[in-house]
């Protein structure tokens, strides 16, 4: 579905991504984990066309999308929930969601998508007319996720969706992701909660200093003691 081949990115001559190759199959959840500054967000940005590739190629269903302008990539169905909840602060919650619909190029007033998002995050229905910038941090994160879903993605790129969400909400979001995935949505998930990510995903890769250092079935990675040591922290050891 989504294949990334030998992708490299540099900022002002400094390499952030060095020849990354991975592929996300149709209908799977693929988790990408790694320490801060590893290049996870950079990879998603490259896929979305926000930052240019220095080398390599990215394809969506066999078609090359690297080099295309970002809005076209989004309209092709590759939609990203960016890191750090980039809601359009001056627009209301409802308007933000409406904008999300844009990517799908849907006109008319079908409310099925909206109902689905409202069901997942009831607070967004309640705060329909509030400027998004005045939501709490977690509420903004919900809006960012909801907005992406409004665009009826075929591939959803999630950059740390659990960021700032209460545990109970995280669970709901991940349950929803699994449900959507069962209905055919392909997901590339960047997540710092490595345990949760590996539990949810089918396959996973670990990125360190711009390179993929491990790749494989999520369950296998979760069981790898080195990975556990690096990414689960002492909490696991304590428990």
């Amino acid at each position, binding site marked *: 579905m989504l294949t990334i081949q030998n992708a490299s990115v540099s900022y002002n001559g400094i390499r952030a991504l060095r020849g990354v190759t991975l592929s996300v199959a149709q209908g799977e959840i693929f988790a990408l984990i790694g320490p801060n500054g590893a290049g996870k967000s950079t990879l998603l940005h490259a896929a979305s066309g926000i930052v240019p590739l220095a080398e390599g190629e990215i394809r969506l269903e066999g078609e090359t999308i690297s080099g295309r302008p970002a809005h076209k990539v989004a309209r092709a169905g590759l939609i990203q929930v960016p*890191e*750090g909840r980039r809601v359009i602060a001056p627009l209301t919650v409802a308007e933000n969601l409406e904008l999300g619909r844009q990517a799908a190029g849907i006109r008319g007033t079908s409310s099925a998508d909206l109902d689905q998002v409202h069901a997942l995050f009831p*607070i967004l229905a309640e705060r329909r007319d509030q400027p998004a910038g005045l939501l*709490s941090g977690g509420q903004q994160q919900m809006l960012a996720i909801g907005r992406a879903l409004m665009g009826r993605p075929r591939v959803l790129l999630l950059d740390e969706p659990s960021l700032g969400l209460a545990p109970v909400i995280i669970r709901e979001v991940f349950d929803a992701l699994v449900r959507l995935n069962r209905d055919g949505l392909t997901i590339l998930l960047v997540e710092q909660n490595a345990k949760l990510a590996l539990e949810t995903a089918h396959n996973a890769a670990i990125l360190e200093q711009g390179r993929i250092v491990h790749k494989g079935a999520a369950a296998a990675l979760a069981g790898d003691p080195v990975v556990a040591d690096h990414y689960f922290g002492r*909490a696991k050891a304590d428990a």
Partner: protein
Amino acid sequence: MKALTLDNIARSFGGLPAVDGVSLQAPPGRITGLIGPNGAGKTTVVNLITGLLKVGGGRILVGDDDMTEADAPTLARAGVARTFQNIRLIGDATVLDNVVAGFHRHEKAGTLANMLGLPSAHHERREFERKAHALLDRFGMTALARHPAGSLSYGHQRRIEMMRALAMEPSVLLLDEPVAGMNDAEAYSLADIFRDVARQGVAILLIEHNMRFVMSLCEHIYVLAFGRLIAEGTPDEVAGNPRVIEAYLGS
């Protein structure tokens, strides 16, 4: 060393009571947790304490001083430091400069000395830079000192937020989701730093959704929902509280 005391503070936006009669204590040397569902009012509490928002009712005490009406700079000078949930750094400035900015409240050289470029002002700057480097070292970011803050990854930017707050050498430290965007291993390396800071007598109020982190770090936890306290106690007490489980943790 000063304790932070909130006495029945309230604040609403339009008709919405975002904080509704919250009282809590963050004594010196202790890491106090503040948790609660999204939109519970945690960040609003921080904004009220730091004077960015006007209090609608109740009292805020820092040590024995009533700071309810104080404006933000006054509170900062009184030793209240914070990090921002939505990262706010000077993106174009270097990491070092962002950290040095935190020392502002410790400047002794007066306006005139600064304007005239007296040596006292100069030495002060040196001293701040030395201390900032020590902080960078502690957070493992020495190599990034001269990078523009805006070009760093999310996790590194969070660390700069914390270093800047620590540079204020505060008596009260408010951390709004400091380890968001970090994996557990990374979070725990920061936990050690927070414990150190608390041990020196700083009152820390920690807001965080990473429950394992909160549980392992905090001695006392307050739980907020819909602007009201619904529970408080030791981590285990709180984690076992059915209201907390229902509203926040989920089953």
